[in-house]
């Protein structure tokens, strides 16, 4: 399992501050993005421009998410 902490618009749209996913082996952030998009189509648009983090570190597209990880999903913000 992994836990995805949801921030900003993602939390508002899903109505919860986290979701959990069955995650049996290490896979990339891009794979996580695809998986979230599939399971939560309501945030598919936000996922395209969201960034991911683990702890306080940024996770690039190729970074591996391991079973047991807690990662944050932070959609980009464009207003001003």
């Amino acid at each position: 399992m992994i836990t995805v902490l949801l921030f900003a618009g993602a939390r508002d749209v899903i109505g919860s501050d986290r979701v959990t996913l069955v995650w049996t082996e290490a896979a990339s952030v891009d794979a996580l993005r695809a998986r979230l998009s599939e399971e939560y189509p309501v945030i598919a648009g936000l996922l395209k421009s969201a960034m991911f983090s683990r702890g306080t570190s940024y996770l690039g597209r190729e970074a591996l998410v391991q079973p047991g990880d807690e990662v944050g999903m932070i959609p980009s913000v464009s207003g001003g």
Partner: protein
Amino acid sequence: MNRYHKQQLFAPIGEAGQRAIQHARVLVCGCGALGSVIADQLVRAGVGVVRIVDRDFVDITNLQRQMLFDEDDVRQQTPKAIAASEKLRRVNSEIIIEGIVGDITSETIRELAADVDLIVDGTDNYETRFLLNDWSLEKNIPWVHGGCIGSYGQVMAIVPGKTPCYRCILPEEPDPGTALTCDTAGVIAPAVHVIGSLEVSLALQLLTKTFDDSKPSIWHVDVWRGDFRKIDLTGLKEAGGCPACSGGQRDWLHGQRGARSAVLCGRNAVQVTPSSRAKLSLEKFRQDWQQLGVVTSNPYLVKLALNDGTSVTLFGDGRAVIGGTEEISVARGIYSRYVGQ
């Protein structure tokens, strides 16, 4: 006692930092909610030249959060850059404050940003931010990015060659409709004040050469829930692969990307820009439009309010804000009917 006494007492700034601030030239791009906060604090801090550029005029829905404007500005439809610069000149008459009514495009940025030391982001859209990022990388000028919506926002300082750039964190412009806008999610004043203030904090660090570019980060804040997250971006720069700062692409600066029409955030309006810059006689339009609807004007714009609820607000540079629609095609139709081309 000089007016900057308390700021100079703050050790990281000190007298040397204050001198650096007073010698600096800073461009504030966009003067809505974030831009108001940014311009206000930069002017009070004593930045030598503060250039404020904005393409819009003051609307009643702005007053909830855009701290430099009031009901007189709404009545007179004062362009934000003018309203802001006039107010701020009363705050600090010892510096140069330039208010410029206009859009920041791949053409105009060459004049607007040619001579500045720093750019601070008060814009409300991705496109202008990608353009600022291209300019920053091309000219080796730092910029501070900030964005805000609802109760949250993000802030990041970009120093070319040292920190990741805006395109590192956002490789492609999000498709229209995929990101939240303040139309749907709204925005509250505490969020814009916090985000704008954090941008100025970074700006002052950059101007006083106290910014630590060895620890690049982006800050995410939610003022409603009290979340403050600082994400370390060190790995991002090392990973490389950014089309802009590693690959040298300047798609927005070279005009390959970027539209000539833009839906204005939260305004039920679309800005239409002519394909080439114009210098219009606003007086002529003011006369020609008399038979068509209610015409109002000030030295910077002429507005035609039509019976069907739409409106055309035309600026001297040929741009128009078409009110009452968010459809670009409808807005372009109205533009060609009443302005021409």
